[in-house]
């Protein structure tokens, strides 16, 4: 960080962050990210790989000078993309869900873009040094960081098993934890189901395509009757093609709106749970400290109380930050989901209108068809 007075100048206009391009080189995807500082209109363009994103996320986790960092809901980073062709589509789907769909990683880029925007829009995280260098440094920062993330996750998972059921002292957090666990499972389920629906629509579009192609094979120009029949077949082929295109459009709409929204939401729920879990860990720590200070022998009591007080203070800060974060998150997610739903609905509506107009054209043409 260069100086606190430059903070505001450095802060990036969240909505200006765009991923404009993605190139694939072997197993590596490189994203072109453009952004604008809120103070100037000049844009910056950098190239980042997924490792750089991981580095950024790690950097956000490990900020040292932010009080109550553990109470922050970190915007969730999508999982690692699997561009390698050696991996089957099915595996990519399993790991990435909706993000694996769409042409040329469009949806994945969109998700990363959303991630960056959310980081930039976050009151605490937007000040982070890591974000600044991520968006501005021409060098790739990702290579500097080790892979401790995985180890962390593993140990976290172990702890989670133990502490998940820990009773909370605060009713607000207790209910948040419960509902979060519940909702995150439900969102995951819905996302999966929706993914099934979308995949099914894609298969249907494919089947329509096959059908329409094989109708072309029925064409026979030998005699007038056959020509008439061939015309009918071609007409039907056109119609099935229209149906196919309709399904493609509908599934694209599904992916780019509600699919992305549900995916983001379920990842966010996960992030929230992680935050709550971090807080719970702190709570456990605090309670241990409390017990220790009570049981402590008089000679150690002062130290124990000191520890207990420090932990208590830390826990209070975390709790208050968490409370704010949760409220903020609730507002955000509702408006986010609302936008996705509206967008989805509008797209579906326009697609349905288009296709119904097209179909009625076909119908008219068909009725005029002399046989």
């Amino acid at each position, binding site marked *: 960080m260069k100086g606190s007075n430059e903070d505001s100048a450095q802060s990036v206009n969240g909505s200006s962050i765009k991923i404009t391009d993605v190139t694939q080189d072997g197993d590596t995807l490189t994203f072109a990210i453009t952004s604008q500082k809120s103070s100037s209109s000049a844009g910056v363009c950098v190239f980042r790989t997924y490792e750089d994103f991981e580095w950024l996320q790690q950097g956000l986790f490990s900020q040292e000078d932010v009080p109550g960092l553990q109470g922050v809901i970190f915007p969730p980073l999508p999982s690692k993309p699997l561009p390698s062709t050696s991996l089957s589509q099915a595996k990519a789907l399993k790991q990435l869900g909706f993000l694996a769909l769409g042409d040329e990683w469009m949806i994945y880029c969109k998700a990363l873009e959303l991630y960056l925007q959310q980081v930039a829009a976050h009151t605490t995280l937007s000040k982070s040094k890591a974000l600044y260098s991520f968006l501005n440094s021409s060098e790739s920062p990702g290579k500097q960081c080790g892979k401790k993330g995985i180890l962390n996750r593993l140990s976290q998972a172990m702890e989670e098993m133990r502490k998940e059921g820990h009773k909370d002292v605060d009713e607000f957090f207790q209910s948040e934890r419960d509902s979060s666990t519940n909702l995150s499972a*439900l969102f995951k389920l819905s996302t999966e*189901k929706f993914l099934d629906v979308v995949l099914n629509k894609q298969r249907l579009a494919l089947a329509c395509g096959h059908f329409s192609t*094989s109708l072309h094979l029925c064409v026979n120009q030998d005699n*007038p009757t056959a020509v008439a029949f061939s015309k009918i077949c071609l007409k039907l082929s056109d119609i099935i093609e229209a149906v196919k295109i309709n399904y493609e459009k509908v599934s694209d709409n599904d992916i780019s709106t509600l699919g992305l929204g549900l995916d983001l939401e379920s990842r966010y729920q996960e992030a929230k749970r992680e935050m709550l879990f971090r807080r719970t860990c702190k709570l456990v720590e605090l309670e241990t400290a409390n017990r220790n200070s009570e049981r402590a022998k008089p000679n150690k009591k002062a130290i124990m109380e000191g520890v207990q007080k420090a932990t208590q203070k830390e826990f209070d800060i975390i709790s208050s930050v968490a409370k704010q974060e949760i409220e903020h998150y609730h507002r955000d997610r*509702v408006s986010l989901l609302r936008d996705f739903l*509206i967008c989805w609905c509008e797209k579906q509506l326009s697609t349905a209108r288009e296709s119904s107009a097209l179909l009625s054209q076909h119908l008219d043409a068909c009725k005029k068809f002399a046989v």
Partner: protein
Amino acid sequence: MAASSERSPPPFPESEEQELEHDLEEDEEDSEEGADIFTGGTLSDSAMDPPLPVSSSEPPKDIFSEPPADTFKDPLNKTSAEKAASGGLSKAQAAVPVKVAADEELDDLFSDSLGESGAAPVTDAKIAPLLDLGEEPQKSDVIKKGAGKDDASTEVLSAPQNDVIKKDIFEEPPKGAAKDLPTDIKDGNAAGKKPASTDLFGDDDDEDLFKEPLGAMTKKPQGSLFTEAKSEAKAARPEQSNSAAADLFTEEAFTVTPVVAAAKSSVNTSSKTNGLHSDEEDLFAEATVELSLDSPHNDRRKREAAKPSAPAPSLSASASTSKPQPKTLEELEEEEKEDTFDLNISVTNPEKVGDGMNAYMAYKVSTQTSLSMFRSKQFTVRRRFSDFLGLYEKLSEKHAQNGYIVPPPPEKSILGMTKVKVGKEDPSSAEFVERRRAALERYLHRVVSHPSLLQDPDVREFLEKEELPRAVSTQALSGAGFLKMINKATDAVSKMTIKMNESDVWFEEKLQEVESEDQQLRKLHAMVESLVNHRKELSVNTAMFAKSVAMLGSSEDNTALSRALSQLAEVEDRIEQLHQDQASNDFFIFAELLADYIRLLGAVRACFDQRMKAWQRWQDAQNMLQKKRETEAKLLWANKPDKLQQAKDEIVEWEAKVSQYEREFERVSATVRKEVIRFEKEKSRDFKKQIIRYLESLLQSQQQLIKYWEAFLPEAKAIA
């Protein structure tokens, strides 16, 4: 009268040409005579005469059995192109172009009757003969030529009695209107003619070949004629004198007049040159369509008026098959003109009868018709599945050997039926029953839409009779076994094909077409099946998604969001229903259509086989004849006069057989040709119909979708 003559479809199919060729020569002479007579008659009598010559040369059977378009076109084309040259032309036509005198006479006729200008008559004369039905010729023959012609005319014309009456009716108005002749005279004429004609026709009733739809068409035109005459002359007379007929005509009057007007205008234009035939064709096509719409009704009424008790003429296979002679392809194709008829059959109310393994499904077969061949307009019978199979068996026994494509019934499904028998309420068995019901309905539709099969007494019995004798041995014929049999037969025949040096390329090509089409349809069927499966899957997935969204909605804390999610769940539920409907639409419209046609193609192949068999018989007979001749030669050489006579007799016998088999082969070939063309037209029409249905269903579901989304959008926007 001239106008009226335009209306009536010209009865004459080229198919008769060969059969009648020898007749024609005579006929031509006759026609000339007839023309003379007519002209004479015209002067004295009335306008009705001009049309007479036409029909005398043509056999009425054809007229009736063949669609009007055909009749219209043929005569026109011919008149324009070859005029008198073509042997198949009607006497009248021949007479008109050839004999200038005749034309003039006709002109006179027309001008008198219609009061039109001199230009019109020429065309009128031409058109009139072309269009004229067999009825008029009959009249002329009967009335004017007397007994001498009767033989010829009876052979040629098998017109029912109603026709006679119609003619009479018909004659009267024009006379009264155009000529202002005393009504008394008209009546007198009518009366005088009636008896004579009825006698004649009474004889002919037996061989009545008359098919309903066609007959209707032929009659209709007259009606229109009549109305025209009426409207022009505004003579109320005919109605009173001939009440039944008059009613008929009055009814028609409104619908017909525009057509008549059109006809007239075109006539005028065409009067200038011969080259304007296209106009005429259009005109007639138009006219035909309109006429055909009302025709059955008209037909029925006329029949009732004429002779309600007269048995509906059954067009026996032999009668119709004897008719087709080698024709050109175009003619055959033209022959297949849409025949609309008023016969609506529905298969409803599937009902399980009995218990256990002896249970069966009974279906209600309701028929709504105005065809006079049925006893009443509406009747309902209960039939079980094996009855349908029995009907098929009977029909194929009678008609398949003649080269007809007998529509195959749905296959017997032991698995499906066992489920129905055992299971109580199971969605899959309900689907099975519905699927079979629809298939049976389509099957019956196909049967009755075949003009020859409709005439079969078994069909009528099936539709009408309260109790049918229990069909036996349907087991062997139905289901997969049946298909296998066809396949076997086809294989056997394909071996034979190698031996048969196909004289007609058309058949060879068609057979190949049928084979490849079979492959294609099977492929398409598989595609549609997978499409249907995907749709079903989609509807299941959508339902699951809806369920999870509903759960999400119920555990969501934000009330607005929760509400919207619940709404979304409902929307998805409805969409699921849409997908389900679409799946069943896909299935019932396409999968079943394709399955039907795969079966039908089997029947088409079977009719090719029949032709092959006929050919085989003919060849065998020829070989036999060859042997007999060799024996004769040997005997001659050996000088054994006693055995020689026997050998000669045998040769004569085999010669007869050879020519008989040859005729049979020709006949079957012609029928197959006709049937295949009919089948193809039917197929195009069927597919078109189904595609429209499909499109409508697609469109409807899209519109439904739009409604759902439109309803949901405000809900989404309402999320705070």
